[in-house]
């Protein structure tokens, strides 16, 4: 036979097919040797069709929660959730709308958008609420104002209780503003006592008191002295009480101002804050305190109405739906039985002469399947696809080309 291109083209497929068939026959032979388990029952055929009754009741309300979807970024959302609630994620990463200009300085608007984008991106990646929590606007429900000249060194400035009807979170701000003029030198001391008598017998209530005495130089407006009272460490007591003093260096005819303020946060209504005393020490006493101004504001934050949770309130994770997801997926290659055979060792004895072939190889074949593609609940066997395409190509090649 003349070896040419045509001969190679004829022989090569035959060789490949024969070798392939040899492998296949070997595998078949080996498989038939394996005893089939007799006790294993044949599993019942379960059609891969999603029963609508298996779907969870997701309701008909798909409005987005105002506080942002919870659970964003913690898992991959399920397909059904994305289908119904994907629009709730649109505001997470706004596209900067500022038009770029060829300017050496960055556009602040663009920077803001950029930072917002990064912020939301970080929230998305790290898992956050997704939207900033906005504090509700405080509403003033009580206001007290008085101006009187302090005649005594013991001044009961304010003593009142909140109405009982307010049970929401209450912030209580007080501010004491005393202006005066000092004469005759220096080393005056202002001493302030602040007492909170509310929250009695309430182990859950706490008062975060904060008072500050600021002494300003009225001629220049600068802060010359400052002193703080901090009650925040005194939680879970029925009475917080603090006092302190600050020396004020007052030169002649120099104005000063004492500002004390604080707040109290409580879950109960009965709050009582008393600015008990405001003492001025010095010798001689202040000759004149021009005015004292005290104002008091009570803020309360009404509790927001709890939003009814719907299907879009929190992300439903993929695999956590309780049913098989409609979508696209690939199960991956399936691995089947392993069939092994050895080449050697063989011992022959022919006419008293021994021949030995050593153990050359231990070869194994493991069956693999191409797996299934899942498309919208339909499983597509890639093995069938492969064979079908081969047949189709063969027909095309033989009869068309």
């Amino acid at each position, binding site marked *: 036979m003349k070896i040419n291109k045509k001969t190679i*083209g*004829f022989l090569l*497929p*035959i060789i*490949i*097919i024969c070798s*392939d*068939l040899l*492998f*296949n026959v070997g*595998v078949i032979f080996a498989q038939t040797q394996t005893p089939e388990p007799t006790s294993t029952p044949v599993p019942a055929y379960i059609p891969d069709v999603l029963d609508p009754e298996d779907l969870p009741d997701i309701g008909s309300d798909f409005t987005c929660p105002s506080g942002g979807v919870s659970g964003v970024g913690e898992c991959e959302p399920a397909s059904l959730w994305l289908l119904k609630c994907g629009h709730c994620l649109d505001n997470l990463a706004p596209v900067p709308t500022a038009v770029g200009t060829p300017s050496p300085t960055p556009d602040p608007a663009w920077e803001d958008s950029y930072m917002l984008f990064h912020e939301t991106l970080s929230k998305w990646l790290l898992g956050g609420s997704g939207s900033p929590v906005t504090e509700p606007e405080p509403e003033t429900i009580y206001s007290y104002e008085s101006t009187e000249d302090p005649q005594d060194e013991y001044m009961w400035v304010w003593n009142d209780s909140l109405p009982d009807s307010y049970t929401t979170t209450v912030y209580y701000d007080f501010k004491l503003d005393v202006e005066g003029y000092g004469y005759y030198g220096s080393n005056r001391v202002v001493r302030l006592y602040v007492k909170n008598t509310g929250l009695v017998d309430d182990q859950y209530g706490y008062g975060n008191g904060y008072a500050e005495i600021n002494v300003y130089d009225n001629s220049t407006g600068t802060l010359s002295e400052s002193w703080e009272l901090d009650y925040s460490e005194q939680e879970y007591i029925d009475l917080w009480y603090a006092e302190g003093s600050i020396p004020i260096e007052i030169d002649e005819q120099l104005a000063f101002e004492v500002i004390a303020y604080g707040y109290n946060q409580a879950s109960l209504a009965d709050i009582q804050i008393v600015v008990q005393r405001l003492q001025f020490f010095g010798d001689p006493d202040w000759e004149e305190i021009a005015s004292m101004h005290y104002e008091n504001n009570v803020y309360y934050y009404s509790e927001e109405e709890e939003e009814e949770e719907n299907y879009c309130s929190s992300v439903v994770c993929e695999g956590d739906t309780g049913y098989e997801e409609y979508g696209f997926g690939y199960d991956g290659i399936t691995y089947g039985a*392993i069939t*092994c055979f050895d*080449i*050697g060792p063989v011992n022959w004895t022919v006419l008293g002469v021994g021949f030995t072939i*050593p*153990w*050359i*190889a*231990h*070869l*194994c*074949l*493991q*069956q*693999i*399947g*191409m797996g299934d593609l899942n498309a919208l609940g339909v499983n597509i066997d*890639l*093995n*069938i696809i*492969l*064979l079908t*395409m*081969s*047949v189709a*190509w*063969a*027909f095309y*090649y*033989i009869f068309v*080309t």
Partner: protein
Amino acid sequence: MAYIDFTAYFSWSLAGGMAIVLLALFIKSWL
């Protein structure tokens, strides 16, 4: 003594597909 230890993957569908393709090549070469 050292010997060859080898595990190969074998796919019926791939082998079948290849066989069909080669068969087509074979048939075509005779036509």
